[in-house]
């Protein structure tokens, strides 16, 4: 319990945020992709986070009875996971481009709905979040190491 749980919680947040950054990179890389059909156009994808109860990532949870869990109040402490990826619902823009080999019968191609400015804003948020979790990890590590040397002086 306690600080050793912190590593699990923070680790789950780091992996969730790296999935977020990954998704942003894919969106930005595909922002210029055009398609011949509206259904085939690239849509920005974004992860939806959900909290994950502590017992689901704690190794020793099976050894602990549920009454003890509620006594520790640990079942309330949660890490984070990516529950699903959602596609952006903003409209797909079509452009008249008869020379494009992908154009449909009327000469239209369909652009992706990735908004680069929005993606940048999300990236900054994800990176700030990642950094604060790293900070938590470092602090917890220091506290843990100091606790290990307790009474040895």
């Amino acid at each position: 319990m306690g600080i050793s749980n912190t590593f699990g919680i923070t680790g789950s947040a780091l992996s969730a945020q790296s999935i977020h950054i990954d998704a942003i990179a894919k969106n930005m890389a595909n922002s210029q992709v055009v398609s011949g059909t509206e259904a085939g156009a690239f849509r920005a994808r974004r992860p939806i986070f959900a909290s994950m109860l502590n017992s689901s990532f704690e190794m020793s949870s099976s050894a602990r009875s549920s009454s003890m869990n509620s006594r520790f109040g640990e079942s309330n402490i949660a890490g984070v996971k990516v529950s699903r990826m959602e596609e952006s619902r903003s409209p797909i823009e079509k452009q008249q481009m008869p020379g494009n080999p992908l154009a449909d019968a009327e000469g239209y191609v369909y652009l992706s709905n990735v908004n680069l400015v929005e993606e940048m804003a999300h990236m900054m948020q994800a990176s700030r979040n990642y950094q604060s979790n790293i900070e938590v990890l470092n602090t917890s590590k220091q506290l843990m190491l100091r606790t290990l040397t307790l009474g040895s002086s």
Partner: protein
Amino acid sequence: MGVIDNALGIYPKALSFRSQRSAVLAGNIANSDTPGYKAKDYNFRDALKSSSDSFSVGLRTTNSGHQGSSISEDFGPLLYRVPSKETINGNTVESDVEQAAFSENAVRYQTTLQFLSGTISGLRLAIKGQR
């Protein structure tokens, strides 16, 4: 075990509380992007009260695999933090508040460690009778 626990006073319990609180605050920071997540924290007064109430009560051992302990781990209820601003997705984590609380908690943890190692060196001195 009882003698040593009494000799160390409230510090082991304080350390345990600080470490549990650090996990709660880490959970808040981890969930700062989760829709609908509500930030939680302990009230120190409740924690102090429930641990001094249960000072002499050990952990119940209902199974042969359980380990008894004279330190109770009851820190009172986890409460929801009242946010200072609203968010559109119902998340009440304010990163700056949580980070400040986490650092404060870390400093207090270290302080408790310091007190504890002072007590331990005092005990050593008493056992050995010399420096």
